[in-house]
């Protein structure tokens, strides 16, 4: 590869090299770490999960076929280990998302932005989970309270907003690393006086809402 002379061409070759050398498992690992460390639910990686599922199914078929053929047990066990590792990543990723949905169920159902980040199956799950929880609360507690107090979203009829709904704390602190140099333009303007730039590969403890925008653009990884 030709060595770039200017800043633009070097970053292009960096990106290209990263692009060709990043496997789906690396991408899934990154998505898993980000999802685990972030206080709110992130955008569902539909294409990535679909590809990984296909690769896992293919690998499972290979393992079964080679088991039937009586292949070398060492090779088979290594393939099985790789399969187990990928399956763990996928399962943990989906589990963390489900945990977050369960924790902030009413908030997610209320907010369109959060609802759009879920996959179709997760939206179905969230809707049915919300209905079940609402029915349970009504049956056990709310139906026995006076009319002004029996909403599961508001403390009382006099509340102006839905104050019984726990929302994810966006001001919690996370640890992150930038994948490239980030200038002040990449952050939201209202936080630009708090954080002006971030160097590459430097461990930073920072409030989650400051780095929300670069995280969505894929410029920052949570650790």
């Amino acid at each position, binding site marked *: 590869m030709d060595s770039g002379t200017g800043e633009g061409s070097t970053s292009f070759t960096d990106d290209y090299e990263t692009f060709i050398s990043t496997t789906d498992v690396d991408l899934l690992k990154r998505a898993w770490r980000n999802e685990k460390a972030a206080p709110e639910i992130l955008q569902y990686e539909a294409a990535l999960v679909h590809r990984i599922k296909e690769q896992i199914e293919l690998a499972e078929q290979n393992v079964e076929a080679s088991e039937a053929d009586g292949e070398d047990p060492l*090779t088979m066990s290594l393939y099985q280990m790789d399969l187990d590792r990928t399956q763990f990543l996928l399962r943990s990723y989906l589990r963390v998302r489900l945990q977050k949905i369960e924790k902030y169920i009413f908030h997610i159902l209320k907010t369109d932005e959060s609802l759009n980040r879920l996959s179709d199956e997760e939206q179905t799950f969230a809707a049915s989970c919300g209905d079940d929880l609402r029915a349970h609360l009504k049956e056990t507690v709310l139906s026995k309270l006076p009319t002004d107090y029996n909403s599961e979203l508001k403390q009382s009829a006099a509340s102006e907003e839905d104050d019984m709904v*726990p929302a994810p704390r966006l001001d919690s602190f996370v640890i992150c690393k930038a994948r490239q140099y980030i200038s002040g333009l990449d952050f939201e303007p209202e936080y630009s006086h708090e954080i002006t730039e971030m160097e590459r590969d430097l461990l930073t403890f*920072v409030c989650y809402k400051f780095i929300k925008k670069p995280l969505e653009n894929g410029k920052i990884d949570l650790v």
Partner: protein
Amino acid sequence: MAGQSGSQLSLFTPDEVEFVAEDELVEIVPNLRMDSLNFICGDYGPFYPQIAIQVPLWLALALKKRGKCTIRPPQWMSIENLTQVLEGERESHAFQTLPFHYVEISRLLFDRARDDIPDVYMVRSLVEDIRDVRFHKVETNLENFTNSSLVLQWKNMAAMEVNIIRAFSGRALQAFYRHENEQAVPDLDRTQDRQPQNLNDRPRVCRSFCCIPIFPLHHWIDKIVFISCLLDYCPTIVFLWRAYCLFVVPLQRNLRPR
């Protein structure tokens, strides 16, 4: 239902950190002939006897367990390099450059590939010393948290060290941030899963503590409030501290000789 990895969502267990570390590449020298392996995570091989090859750590350990290879310890694990790193750690405040997963990699190699490391006891003791010195530095840096440190940057800290202080430092920084911005955060606290009354009480109570001029105890106020916020026993400690300030301190003042 869905949860498996800990009650706190955003915490990584040490096993999970080790899982991530096992993807790092190491060099092995196989003693068997094997075709290339086409894993989901990448393609490795083909393997020829006595020809060195780079594989992920989990694969190297699996082959080592079955006696099919020897693992070459990574460059940074030589005695000369580790001695240099240890001296650098002792002399300067900054962290020396070590691989991000050096703790996990060294531990796995000591546990399962001990015979492949020359002078393993020396190497092991050097790594332990480096870990101790670095963690001592981490603890010292934690003491320097102030309410103005909203964005902290540390160079060259390792994955395991980060994981150990993740929960504590996250909550500490959040407490600082909340106390600093308590005026800008009116009823947001009520949406938390705690009783709103206690939460709204907390900032007001803390402020009144800092106003009590009981020198030289004011820095103790900050420490106790800080620790109590972390431990979430704030209401109890707050109550006891208030009682102490209102009743015991004036008595002490009257009794103290002038």
